[in-house]
């Protein structure tokens, strides 16, 4: 059987696991795909590879396709988020001299921490369009100043005293703590229990023009996510991801970093809720002075829950009854209405209990 060639791009991060596993454990091959993976040096480089067709798909920060739809940033083509590939996994960390000022403050209480942080802080994020940046704005307010510090440059930036606080994904967070340049303040999931961190992205015109390829790739990645939900599989995953073409790091570091609370599958984690995109779009629009209603409308179209239903429903994925939901409304794991039967949803509360309602403009 001749296989369809497809190339996908990634950055060397824990949540590239679904793509790497899809290739290495032959979930892609089962779908008749010859999946080649290409490591990119930065998010803007990965976006350009996707834009100019040097890769067909990418494991991408979820706000990048949304920002693109809003006309923000340097991208040049409309991108679709086909499915969510990871929830959470962001870590907020800080150097010792700031940590000392928080002695005696309850680390589990985001309100107390916020009140105790010495403002203004110089805050590092991995990319201007990232769930990392959104979590910090959501927690500390829109008045903060963030700057982009690519994770490989974090140690230098910390050594030069350029940052008071940063938020970063794994394995960078664990790596930074191992090196003693920062200590953990709190995980991003304290601010939002289930933030959509990475998506499987494809150029909109490509996904439309080639539904067969799109479907095969989605099924392969979704099965990889399902495989990753089992803890015992994560040891194997860490071994594979440690290899040179992928993260090129010691497996034990990757294994520990995998324990950072990143969710690949459970609770419909892979479902691209239109309301998630709308939340991101609304936040970006407000911050950049765009029309919020228009932005929300443009944003929700980017998360392709329609393609998810089309391609993953027949493969056995749980399909919620609606494609939009109240974001932040689930406090306890529970069963919710589905297209057929019921589906399990996991908590997705914000730290302050506020609920984002996609039906109110």
């Amino acid at each position, binding site marked *: 059987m001749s296989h369809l060639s497809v190339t996908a791009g990634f950055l060397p991060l824990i949540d590239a696991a679904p793509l790497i596993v899809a290739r290495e454990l032959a979930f892609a091959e089962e779908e008749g795909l010859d999946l080649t993976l290409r490591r990119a*040096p*930065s*998010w*803007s*480089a990965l976006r*350009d*590879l996707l*834009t*100019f067709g*040097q890769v067909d798909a990418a494991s991408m920060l979820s706000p990048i396709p949304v920002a693109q739809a809003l006309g*923000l*940033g*340097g*991208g*040049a*083509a409309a991108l679709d988020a086909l499915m969510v590939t990871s929830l959470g996994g962001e870590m907020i960390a800080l150097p010792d001299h700031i940590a000392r000022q928080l002695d005696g403050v309850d680390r589990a209480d985001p309100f107390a921490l916020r009140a105790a942080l010495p403002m203004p802080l110089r805050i590092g994020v*991995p*990319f*201007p369009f990232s769930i990392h940046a959104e979590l910090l704005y959501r927690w500390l307010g829109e008045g903060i100043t963030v*700057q*982009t*510090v*690519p*994770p*490989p*440059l974090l140690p*230098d*930036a910390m050594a*030069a005293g*350029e940052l008071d606080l940063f938020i970063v994904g794994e394995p960078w967070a664990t790596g930074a703590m191992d090196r003693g340049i920062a200590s953990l303040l709190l995980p991003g999931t304290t601010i939002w229990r289930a933030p959509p961190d990475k998506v499987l992205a494809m150029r909109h015109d490509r996904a439309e023009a080639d539904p067969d390829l799109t479907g095969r790739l989605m099924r392969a990645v979704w099965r990889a996510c399902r495989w990753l939900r089992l803890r015992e599989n994560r040891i194997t995953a860490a071994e594979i991801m440690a290899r040179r073409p992928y993260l090129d790091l010691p497996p034990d570091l990757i294994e520990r970093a995998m324990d950072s609370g990143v969710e690949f599958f459970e609770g419909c984690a892979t479902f691209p809720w239109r309301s998630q995109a709308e939340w991101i779009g609304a936040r970006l629009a407000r911050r*950049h*002075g765009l029309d919020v209603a228009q932005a929300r409308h443009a944003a929700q179209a980017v998360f392709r829950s329609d393609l998810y239903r089309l391609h993953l429903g027949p493969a056995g994925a749980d399909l919620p009854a609606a494609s939009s939901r109240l974001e932040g409304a689930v406090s306890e794991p529970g069963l919710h209405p589905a297209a057929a039967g019921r589906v399990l949803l996991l908590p997705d509360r914000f730290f302050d209990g506020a609920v984002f309602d996609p039906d109110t403009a």
Partner: protein
Amino acid sequence: MKPLSIVLIEKIPERAVLITEALRAECEVTVIDSDQGLARRIAEIAPDLVLIDVANPSRDTLEELSLASSPMERPVAMFVDRSDRDLTRAAIEAGLSAYVVNGLRAERLRPVLDAAIARFHLFQRMRAELTATRAALEERKIVDRAKGIVMKARGIGEDEAYALLRRTAMDQKKKIAEIAQAILTAADLLK
């Protein structure tokens, strides 16, 4: 016309020199060779164009500049797509990304980028040649040493020793250098 102001973010001194030389006649080129405070330094220089290696992770810092909205800061937008997709593709394939200030006209940009792309290619070629030359030199040293060992062990001349190495390599479908390396390793063990 005022010369274009260009910031080149480049840590490899040889490549920085190559590109600067190519552009110096038409442009004012400032080379930045470190990542420290990159966004601030670019904002201070306020260039028309920023050139950066695609492989440099600091590209993501530049992305932030495209969002600068204060009137004191000059908006920088990546030029991709806007006017000339082929040119952009050529740049990306050469390993170069370019950020231009909004409104810089394509006819001023094109010759600069063409020159920069050509220099990127030239540098890649030079580096590939250098690596190949080094490897060849290294191999010749290994073969020479192995030849000496064979000559001494078997009491034969240089040409004969080389012929023996070559024949063995052909028989085993290996490179002469690999056979030579094996001889060196074995000789070391038997010392």
